[in-house]
């Protein structure tokens, strides 16, 4: 059985009485260590699918099993614990805590994993070093460029040694140079054996993944490896 296993997964939203089908009958299996790109036009359901994979949201219908566990049966606290230990998120809009410094942002998830304060500081420093921002540790997000913010976000995603990295258009708000740096970082993480799922519009970025899953109107329309 694959690490990520979805069968007939749908997600509906109620908008003013009418149901919007964000995802319809998605079947999907992603193995540990794969690198996958989710490709599709705006509104096709890429972000929705990524949120479901990352247990940030639960399906309206269908079954999602992560490492054999039925996600739909977990309560909110169990879902949070699963996210904390397993998934690292990277968002298009960075989503850093605006009032916290770079290292506080990186250390935050460790707190939820019960890491001791001194160890948090040590690990956060090491992670910032790794993304090349050791000298920006005391900066707030507003004092960092977009590319730097996204690298802080990647460092934060790595805080609890997650097995899966989920990146939703990580280069969407970046210039091409910063974007290339971020893509290179994600490539390194895959090289370490982590599972990487990248949502993108960009065929060039998708081409670097081992496997490309194409979505259209909430359905998987193509799934090709290499």
């Amino acid at each position, binding site marked *: 059985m694959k690490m990520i296993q979805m069968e007939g997964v749908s997600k509906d939203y109620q908008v003013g009485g009418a149901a919007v089908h964000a995802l319809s009958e998605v079947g999907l299996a992603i193995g540990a260590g794969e690198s996958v790109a989710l490709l599709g036009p705006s509104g096709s359901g890429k972000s929705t699918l990524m949120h479901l994979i990352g247990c940030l949201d639960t399906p309206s219908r269908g079954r999602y099993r992560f490492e054999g566990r039925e996600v739909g049966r977990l309560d909110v606290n169990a879902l949070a614990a699963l996210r904390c230990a397993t998934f690292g998120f990277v968002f298009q809009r960075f989503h850093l805590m605006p009032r916290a410094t770079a290292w506080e942002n990186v250390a935050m*998830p460790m707190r939820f994993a019960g890491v001791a304060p001194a160890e948090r500081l040590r690990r956060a420093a090491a992670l910032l070093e790794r993304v090349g921002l050791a000298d920006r540790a005391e900066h707030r997000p507003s004092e960092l460029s977009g590319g730097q913010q996204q690298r802080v976000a990647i460092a934060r995603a790595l805080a609890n040694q997650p097995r899966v990295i989920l990146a939703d258009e990580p280069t969407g708000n970046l210039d091409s140079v910063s974007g290339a740096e971020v893509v290179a970082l994600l490539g390194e993480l895959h090289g370490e054996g982590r599972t990487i799922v990248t949502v993108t519009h960009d065929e060039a970025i998708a081409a670097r993944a081992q496997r490309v899953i194409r979505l259209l109107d909430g359905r998987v329309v193509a799934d090709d490896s290499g």
Partner: protein
Amino acid sequence: MPAAFLPPDWQRALRAQRGRAVSTLLGLVWGTFGIVAMLAFGTGLREKLERESDALGRGIVIAFPQRTSISYRGYPAGRPVPLRLEDVRALPAQVPGLEAASPEFIRWESVAVGDRLLRTNVSGVDPSFGLLRSMPPQPGGRFLNRPDLDGARRVAFLGERICQALFDTQDAVGRAFTLNGAPFLVVGVQRPKKQMGDYGGLDDMRVTIPASSFQQVFGDRLLEDFVFRARDGADTAQVISAVYAALGPRAGFDPRDRQALNIWDTTEGQKIRTYAFLAMDLLLGSAGAFTLLVGAIGLGNLMFVLVQQRRREIGIQMAVGARPSWILREYLAQALVLVLAGGALGFLLAWGVTEAVAASPLVESVGRPRVSLPIGALTVLLLAGAGTAAGYFPARRAARLDPVEALAS
């Protein structure tokens, strides 16, 4: 200051809401101050009144013989009740609930030292009178005792003001004066006391001598009154009834004839005071609690605004693994920190004011305000309650946010 206990990003969030945070904190400070200060002043006033009324005698009953209102054993109604020393001295044996009783003669007489002549109240009593009527001696002196009574000694216990007036000093033990021409020796001077309520003059102007000596000097047979106290735990009203039952046959009145004795039961005054102060505490306490309630509503409002503003941040925290229960606890804790900060400031302020009043001449009229343990405990309880109530709903709202939606805001 209080914000120093909060995590750094909270301090920054509060700073962004400075106006609201300051007014919330002020409300909490003011509410706490109100409760603590008002109750402290109530305590001080109560203690002062209790001390002053205890100066007459704690929990005593004073009984004055009157006229009968019911005919008894052939005597018509309207006969004066004759009460003698032996009648009162027989009481302890007849009334089990009685702690002690003392007869009292009273006369308005002249006392003299050399050519200094004064008129004042003179009481003839038994030794138990001193304890019953709270008349402690100053160091170096004593109250009247049994040998004084048995030997009908010419000794006296003086109130501190009459002592000063006669001898120009408080140090009068061993000095002599004349009473109705008879020489008397001072054996004790009363410790200064502030007395609320009296009969036949204040104790600080009283000359107290043994009942036996009183009879020898003045020839009196009939008592002015007698003083007694029920034992701890005994019901004063029942003891009074037993006193009627015991005295009636001896003094010739029907035990059911309540008019035969004029009874001053000071425990009734104590009861009334207790209820009056309870009512006052409730009034003041609820006024303070209401202020605190307003403060708590302000706090709830502040918390809602903070949660609303931090939706996206809460979404981020949830995305990286914060459990909803953690979010709930976190926001509740912040509300409590704010409440306790406001409460601590209000408490300090109230404490400062009570100390300032305690050190000022105001003490004479309002008593010494005191922040007691129950007041402190009540305040802490109210604050914790207010903080929990004000913090819970905003915190629950934060904990129930949907992470995906919160991130999108």
